[in-house]
């Protein structure tokens, strides 16, 4: 008999955005019409890739790509990666990408008429420490227009990719900034039905993380799915 890692608990209702979210136009032809098939979790779902610093070196400062400072408002973002039982998720990769201070991505598909910054690319990468803490330095990304509806603008946001310890824990999300007037107008932010879950995507200003005469600090925690108490058994 072998004992696998325990399976993951189901996600809480209304705390995740449905893929059929009509206000976000690009979902129209990209959401499956049939409900997803519920399958038993096996080792395929309860284990997952481990991206190590050996192959993915940390890039904790997005502002000094060339040795010259990137334009914009320098900020520090820090927080913890934990699971739903508030246990730290240590040594896990966090991939980061974002627009520059003018709201422009260094990406051939971005046609927004805003300047690129030769000293800013917009990719970062950090690993959580043994207590789940992470930190990186960047510039605050600008808002940018998009074609979803008339006069549509994305709120300031940073994109993240996390893996956790099982393929069923994979998380792609976006972090927003407190007080952004675009948030109540953004169909991507609004797609999560539960208001509390939605608002947890907004970082909080963190005076403790703020460094005097250097950069404002923000706090943002990631919560990955929790595991069942009992491991599954294979006989």
């Amino acid at each position, binding site marked *: 008999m*072998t004992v*696998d890692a325990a399976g993951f*608990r189901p996600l*809480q209702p209304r*705390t*995740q*955005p*449905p*893929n059929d979210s009509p206000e976000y136009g*690009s*979902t129209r*032809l*990209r*959401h*499956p*019409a*049939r409900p*997803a*098939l519920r*399958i*038993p979790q*096996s*080792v*395929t*779902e309860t284990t*997952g*890739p*481990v*991206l190590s610093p050996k*192959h993915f070196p940390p890039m904790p400062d997005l502002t000094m790509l060339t040795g010259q400072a990137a334009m914009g408002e320098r900020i520090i973002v820090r927080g913890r990666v934990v699971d*739903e*039982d508030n246990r730290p998720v240590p040594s896990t990769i966090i991939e*980061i*990408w974002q627009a520059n201070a003018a709201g422009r*991505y*260094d*990406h051939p*598909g971005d046609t927004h008429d805003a300047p690129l910054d030769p000293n800013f690319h917009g*990719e970062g990468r950090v690993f959580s420490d043994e207590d789940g803490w992470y930190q990186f330095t960047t510039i605050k990304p600008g808002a940018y227009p998009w074609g979803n509806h008339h006069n549509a603008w994305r709120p300031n946001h940073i*994109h993240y*990719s996390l893996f956790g310890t099982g*393929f*069923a824990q994979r*998380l*792609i*999300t*976006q972090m927003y900034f407190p007080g952004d007037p675009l948030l109540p107008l953004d169909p*991507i932010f609004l*797609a*999560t039905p539960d208001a509390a*879950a*939605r608002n*947890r*995507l907004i970082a909080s200003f963190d005076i403790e993380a703020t460094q005097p005469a250097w950069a404002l600090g923000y706090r943002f925690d*990631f*919560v990955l799915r*929790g595991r069942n*108490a009992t491991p599954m058994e*294979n*006989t």
Partner: protein
Amino acid sequence: MAAPRLTATASQTIGPFWHLIEHAEMADLLRFGATGEAITVTGTITDGAGQPVADAAVEIWQSSPPVSDSFPAYGRARTDTAGRFEFRTLKPGPVPGLGNAQQAPHLAVTIMARGILRGLTTRLYFQGEPLNDTDPVLSLIDDPAQRATLLARPAGPGAWTLDIRLQGENETVFMDI
């Protein structure tokens, strides 16, 4: 069971600019020198209008062969303007399932893109594998046409291909894990 104290962070779309974290070499799971039965896995992703999904991130994860220093068992690829993706990896073998069940060789596949708020998870199986007939996941699907949406077909020596349809006719079976 005690209620969880916290709630998992909400997913958001990977958007159209995720290529900033792409790193094309991640589509080659043999880049660290793994040896075994090398295969290429290709596919095309189309939307509900039959149009190619040209900006998707496709990820694969396999529990067989196991992760090692030379084999990450995980890959990431972009779709091109024709909606096509390609991986190089090792052919998986049977995978333990619950109880006495053996799972047929398979890859876990997740598709993320603009317009997809939570990654779509599915599995890629290999046409003609004897274990397909008793696989615990494939067995949950009664309709043979739906089951066929998960079966990659041979596309030449060591090459397998699977078309993925996000919506509509021949819609791929996606899974809630």
